[in-house]
């Protein structure tokens, strides 16, 4: 897989020695493109309990403060979500605000 963010390859003399890479580069690396199922979040059903957010192994459930400064779910980061379905599983049974759907490219 080609990393789209690193099209220019550094030469041996340009490359930082000792495998030093700036921090936080994983964010630029699109790891969600081999997902076979996608979580679809239903804004109207969601009670913002954050169970999905705390359970996501890829930090792919997006959150933000609302106008009352209360943290709410704002969507799914599909660049990094791998479609594991943990969020859908953890969403309270009575709510089920996340459903897993087949990925269509």
């Amino acid at each position: 897989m080609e990393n789209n963010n690193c099209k220019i390859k550094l030469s041996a003399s340009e490359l930082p020695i000792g495998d030093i890479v700036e921090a936080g580069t994983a964010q630029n690396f699109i790891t969600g493109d081999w997902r076979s199922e996608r979580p679809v979040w239903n804004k109207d059903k969601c009670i913002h309990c954050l169970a999905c957010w705390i359970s996501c192994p890829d930090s792919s459930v997006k959150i933000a403060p609302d106008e009352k400064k209360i943290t709410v779910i704002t969507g799914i980061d599909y660049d990094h979500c791998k479609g594991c379905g943990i969020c859908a599983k953890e969403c309270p049974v009575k709510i089920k605000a996340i459903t897993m759907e087949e990925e269509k490219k």
Partner: protein
Amino acid sequence: MIKTVYPKGRLVAKTGNEVMAEAMRQIEPDVVAAYPITPATEIVQIFSQFVADGIVKSEYVAVESEHSAMSATIAASAAGARAMTGTSSQGLSLMWEMLYIASGLRLPIVMAEVNRAISAPINIHGDQSDTMGARDAGWIQIYSENSQEAYDNMIQATKIAEKAKLPVLVTTDGFIISHCMEVVETYPDEDVKNFIGEYKPDRYLLDTKRPYTLGSIDLQDYYFEHRWQLAQAMRDAKDIVLEVAKDFENTFGRKYDLYEKFMMDDAEIAVVVIGSTAGTAKVVIKELREKGIKAGLIKIRVFRPFPAETIVKDLANVKAIAVMDRSDSCSGTYAPVYSDVVSALYAAGITGPKAINYVYGLGGREINTEHIAAIYDKLGKIASGAEKAFTGIEYVNVRF
């Protein structure tokens, strides 16, 4: 155990292990992580006592294996600490995987290494199979002829490692140096501290203002470039070793080079050797010189980086050379030092000298002046054409 320390420096009678621990005390690294192994145990044992007695401010990490010792040393070094360890034989073997990580991450770790045979069969005595096994790990390797050199090499290694951004191991021959008492001149703490200076890494993991990722994945994209950098750092390290040796000579008065030439100016026959056996060979050479035999010696101090370019110049006019290896690569042909010396000669187009390979002293087997005199005798006969040079390995003092 000797706990006496001499902050002002003086002539002391110490074993190789004691004097390596003394050097570590004066260097006072931030972190030492180590696991005891014969014959290197005393080095870290004495050092841990220094820590326990509050003589040094270093952090001592008692780990459960050498793999962990190297891992903890790597972690400390990556975090920004001056980090050291010590080991021998199986211990170094257990570090093998991590040795490559230390060099690949370009961490200036210094290791006190006591050369010892590798099992099986079990043998705790001196030979160089252990560090020769780590030959390609990207570590600078400095060998010592005696305790004085071990002490001096440890001090220089600290500076070399930090300038070259490469890990360095300093060796002594197991028991022959590690456990034998000699008179060693130690230097005042202050002078050693001034010589090595403060360690200021360019980047370190505990620098929260400039966070970075270390040890990420390289694959086909960058691994090759990083390995080239490592090999190039090793080539560049020759000048750094010489630079540090010059500083050392100016400060402490002892002269060091990548290798030592002993009576080589007009030598017709020469032995190339590493470690304590050089001392024994020097005694033989003096006797031979009295008889008018032009014998010389090259003692390799820095085996990695290998001083190929200059060594060939010094060997070019010699008629017969014996390269003595205290390890056997079991390659079916030749042992490691011989392979390096001869490939260096061949690459430089020097085919005059007859080079023969002796393997000696495995597992601490005795190597005395008579054995070495016999080698020079053989070299004399080969040089004069009285005998043909053998092409296999000659094993010194082994029962067939």
